[in-house]
C-alpha cells in the first residue's frame, strides 16, 4: 500500500480482489484440506450415520433380506450413475439415461427370445449408438449437452413406445433362461446384478484413475481449452463418455428386465434426476474436473437407504421421499458450492 496510490487505482485493485475472492476463496491449507475431505467423504459419513440410526430405530432395517433387497434395487441405478459420473466429470450432463434404461429393458426382453447374448448386446448396442449421436452433436457440432440429451430422452422414449405398441405390449423374459438366472439368481447371498455392478465400478474406478482416457476425462472437465492446447483429444473423449453412458444405461435396463423377467415400459421416468443427484451427492462437481466413482456408489446407496427408511416408517407417503431427496440435493449443492475451490465467478 503506497501513499501515492490514487483513488481510481484503489478501486480497480479492490474490484480485482473481489473478483479473485469470488473465483478462488482464500483459506489456509488446513481448511482447504478439510473442505476436500468433506467433499470426498461427506456422503459416506452421512450414509454411515443414517444407516446406524435406521438399524437402531427399525428392527427390520438391518436384516439380511432387507439389506440384500436394497443392494439389488440400488444396483441398476448405480450402473446408470457410473456412466453419469464420467459425463459429469467432463463438465457435461446426460438427461437421456432414464429413457435409455427403459429402452434397454424392452430391447433385452424382446431379444431374449434369440438368446442371452442378443438380449445383452442388443440394448447395449442400440443405447450406445444413441450415446454416439449425443456425443457427436455435443463434441463436433458443439451443441449444449443438456439440450441434446433432452432431445435424446424424448426420442428414445418415443422409440421404446413405438416398439411396444405405445406401451401396451410387454415382452417377457423366458423363465429358467440364463438371462433370468443372471438377473434373479444369487451368489454368496447377494443378487447377481449386485456383483456385476461392483465389478463395473471397480473397472470404472481403474479406468478413471489409472488410464490415459481417465486423465483426459478430468482434463476436459477441468479446462477444456487448456486440455485441447495440451493435446488431449477433447472431442473423442466427450464422444466416448456419452457412448459409455448410453451403453451402461442400456445394460442397466437389460439387467433390470432380467430381474423383473419383463421389459416394463413405464420404468426410468425421472431416473436421470436420481442418477445426477447420486453423482452430485457423492462429491462429483457439476462444473466438471473433479469427481469420484466411489462417491457415486455411496450417493446411490444413500438415496436408496433414505427411500427404505421412509418406507419403514410406513405412515409416511412415498412422496415424502421426493421432498427429502430434493432437500438433500439442495443442501449438498449449497455445501459443495461453499466448500468448492473452483467457484463460479460472482
Amino acid at each position, binding site marked *: 500500500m503506497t501513499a501515492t496510490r490514487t483513488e481510481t487505482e484503489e478501486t480497480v485493485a479492490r*474490484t480485482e480482489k473481489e*473478483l479473485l475472492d469470488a473465483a478462488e476463496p482464500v483459506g489456509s491449507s488446513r481448511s482447504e484440506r478439510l473442505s476436500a475431505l468433506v467433499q470426498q467423504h461427506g456422503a459416506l459419513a452421512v450414509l454411515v450415520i443414517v444407516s446406524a440410526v435406521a438399524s437402531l430405530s427399525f428392527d427390520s432395517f438391518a436384516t439380511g433380506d432387507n439389506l440384500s433387497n436394497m443392494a439389488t434395487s440400488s444396483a441398476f441405478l448405480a450402473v446408470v450413475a457410473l456412466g453419469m459420473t464420467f459425463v459429469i466429470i467432463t463438465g457435461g*450432463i446426460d438427461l437421456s439415461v432414464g429413457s435409455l434404461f427403459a429402452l434397454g429393458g424392452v430391447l433385452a426382453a424382446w431379444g431374449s427370445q434369440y438368446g442371452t447374448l442378443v438380449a445383452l448386446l442388443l440394448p447395449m448396442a442400440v443405447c450406445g449408438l444413441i450415446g454416439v449421436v449425443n456425443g457427436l*452433436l455435443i463434441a463436433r*457440432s*458443439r*451443441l*449444449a449437452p*443438456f*439440450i*441434446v440429451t*433432452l*432431445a*435424446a*430422452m*424424448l*426420442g428414445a*422414449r*418415443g*422409440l*421404446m*413406445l*413405438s416398439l411396444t405398441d*405405445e406401451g401396451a405390449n410387454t415382452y417377457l423374459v423366458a423363465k429358467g433362461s440364463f438371462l433370468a438366472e443372471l438377473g434373479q439368481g444369487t451368489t454368496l447371498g447377494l443378487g447377481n446384478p449386485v456383483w456385476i455392478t461392483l465389478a463395473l465400478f471397480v473397472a470404472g474406478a481403474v479406468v478413471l484413475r489409472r488410464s490415459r482416457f481417465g486423465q483426459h476425462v478430468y482434463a476436459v472437465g477441468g479446462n477444456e481449452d487448456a486440455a485441447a492446447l495440451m493435446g488431449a483429444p477433447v472431442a473423442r473423449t466427450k464422444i466416448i463418455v456419452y457412448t459409455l453412458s448410453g451403453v451402461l444405461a442400456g445394460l442397466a435396463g437389460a439387467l433390470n428386465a432380467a430381474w423383473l423377467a419383463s421389459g416394463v415400459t413405464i420404468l426410468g421416468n*425421472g431416473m436421470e*434426476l436420481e442418477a*445426477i*443427484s447420486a453423482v*452430485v451427492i457423492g462429491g462429483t462437481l*457439476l*462444473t466438471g474436473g473433479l469427481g469420484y466413482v466411489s462417491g457415486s456408489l455411496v450417493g446411490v446407496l444413500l438415496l436408496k437407504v433414505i427411500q427404505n427408511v421412509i418406507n419403514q416408517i410406513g405412515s409416511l*407417503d412415498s*412422496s*415424502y*421421499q*421426493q*421432498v*427429502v*431427496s*430434493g*432437500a438433500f*440435493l*439442495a443442501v449438498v*449443492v*449449497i455445501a459443495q*458450492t*461453499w466448500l468448492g475451490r473452483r*467457484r*463460479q*465467478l*460472482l
Partner: protein
Amino acid sequence: MAEAAIRPAALDRARVLQWMQTYGVYAGVAVLLVVNIAVTPHFLSAENFRTQAVQVAPVIIVALGMALAIGTEGIDLSVGAVMALAASVTALYLGYGLVPALLTVAVFAAVVGLANGALVAWVGVQPIVATLALMVGGRGIALVLLPQLKDLHNPALASLGSGDVLGIPYLIVIAAALALLVAFVIRRTTFGRQLLAIGDNRAAAKLAGLPVRRVLMLVYVACALLAAVAGVLATARLQASDPTSLGNLMELSAITAVVVGGTPLSGGRVNIAGTVAGAVLIQLLTATLIKHDLPPSWTQIAQAIVIVLAVYAARGRGKR
C-alpha cells in the same frame, strides 16, 4: 430457403442458419397450417382452433417465464413441479373462495422462486442444478399436500377455465395479455435491459454496477409465478386438481418452445414472439400427428428432431 436456391452464391450456411433461427419457427407454423388445411379433415373450423389454442395457452405461459430465465443464461426445471404445487394449493384453499386460494398459490410460487433465485444468485449454484432440487422436491411437496386427484366443484374456478369474453376463452386472453406484458418488460423497461445484460455477460453486468442478484431473484420469482398461473388455469380447465401428473414434462415443452422460437440458450437475447410461435408449432405438430392417427410416440420423436434442428440452427450465434 427459396432465396438461397435461386442465388447459389448466397448459399452461405451461416446466413441460411441465421434466417432459420429467426424465421424458421414462423415458416414451420405456416407450413403446418397449410398442410393441415389441405389434408386434415375438419381442421379449418372455429371449434378446432379454439381447442388447439386452449390447449397451448398453459404451455405459452410457462414458456414466457422460461424465456426470462434462459435470457439470463439460466434455466428453470422446476416449472412443472410449480404447476403441480399450484394445483394442490388451489384445491386445499378453494374452500375460502377463489381469490384467497389464488393469493395463497402466489405466495407458494413466490417462495419457490425465491429459493431458486437465492441458490442461483447468492449461493452461485448453476441454475440447472439449483432448480433440479425443487423439480424433485416441489412435486413431492405438492403430493404431500394433496396425495391424489381431487375433483373441484367451484363455479368461479369453472368459469375461469371454460368461460370466455366476446367468444374468446379466458385462457387465451390471459396468455396473450401475459405475452404482451413480458414482451413489454423485456423491450421497454430497465429491468428487461438489466436481465439481458446479465445474460450476455454476468461479470461485466456486475462490474457495471447492475443489481445482478436482485434481477436474478426477480426472474426466478416471475418464472415461478407464471408457472403457477399456468397450473391454476390448467386445473380450472380440468375441473380437478391432479398433482401427480399435472405439469409432467412441462419444463421440456417450455424449453423447446423457447429454443425453437429463436432464443439462444447462451442468454442475452429473448424472443417472445418466437417463443409463442414455438409453443404453437409444437402444439400443431402434435395435433397433426394425432389427427392422422399416428401413435403418440411419433410425437416425441418428432419433438426431439425439432429440438435438435432448432439448436443446430442457433449454433454459433452468441457465446458458445
